[in-house]
């Protein structure tokens, strides 16, 4: 009875709220992408301070729901600094993505991380990279995208 009361006093939603999947560096991110081999993988780089990132995020949530069964995986990578972790967690709780989101490990030169993701990336956010089922990079999308743009990028790789 006591256990039941205790259990009932814990808000259920807090348990369900999406949490960060962990920290990643360039190597860790490459491993996370490689683990999805066989799927079309959409990797989106975002930050809580980035307005267009926040604006396009619901479209990624929608995309993942719509295309999950057809073999699309979405991975999010927050570029926020460790001091902004509470903001990151709040943002994830509000936007409720059904896909994992990592935070870039602090330290090191950001240029090395940017170059490792794509040599053509200037560091602007948001930035999205689409990988084909073969694990190879298929397309990069610079700046805020529309749902149609995300859909076009994945649909052509599902054929």
């Amino acid at each position, binding site marked *: 009875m006591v256990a039941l009361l205790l259990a009932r006093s814990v808000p259920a939603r807090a348990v369900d709220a999406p949490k960060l999947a962990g920290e990643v560096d360039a190597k860790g991110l490459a491993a996370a992408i490689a683990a999805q081999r066989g799927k079309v993988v959409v990797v989106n780089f975002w*930050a809580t*301070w*980035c*307005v*267009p990132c926040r604006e396009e995020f619901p479209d990624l949530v929608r995309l993942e729901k719509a295309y999950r069964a057809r073999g699309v995986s979405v991975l999010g990578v927050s*570029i926020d*600094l460790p001091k902004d972790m509470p903001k990151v967690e709040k943002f994830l709780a509000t936007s409720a993505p059904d896909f994992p989101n990592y935070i870039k490990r602090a330290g090191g*030169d*950001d*240029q090395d991380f*940017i*170059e490792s993701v*794509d040599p*053509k*990336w*200037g*560091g*602007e*956010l*948001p930035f999205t990279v689409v990988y084909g089922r073969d694990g190879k*990079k*298929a*397309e*990069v999308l*610079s*700046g*805020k995208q529309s749902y149609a743009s995300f859909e076009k990028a994945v649909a052509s790789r599902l054929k």
Partner: protein
Amino acid sequence: MKTLRLGLALVGIAAFALPTLADAPAIGAAAPAFELKSVDGKPFSLADAEKSNAYVVLMFIATQCPYSNGYNDRMRDMAAAYAKKGVLFVGINSNNTESVDETAAHAKQHGFGFPVLKDPGNKVADLYDARRTPEVYVVGKDGKLLYHGRIDDNSNDASKVSSPDLKNALDALLAGQPVSKAETKAFGCTIKRA
């Protein structure tokens, strides 16, 4: 094999092409000429600025981007320090989401002693393939691009900078030395194009 290589190259170009963005001028190439108006209504010509200064630093900046705003004091201080050495710093706001009035108020609020230009329709950002704020370009007297990239490697904390790249580039140039790291990258806000 040649055909395969060409094919792969074409696939590469198609995959990485960023439509609406022109190619960035390479280091050593001519910096695209342009004329714009400052937020206080004064005309600015890059060609004229090149003639009357040893170097011109073009800085694509924003009023609402935390990464750009992290550099307000550093931009103000560097501009003042290097003005004595014949270097002109110029701010360019290409965001279609930030008005002339807002850009002028921001420059005044942060004590910018350098001209801040408004780039309607982000034409100059397109000429330079500028993607983010802040993003800087150093142009020499001969109109050539000498440095492109970040101000330094820590937007969050000026006291923890380990690679003051713009300063290093300017100091090398002023000493008649080549720039050792002429292209650098950092995170920043996307320029909000029209």
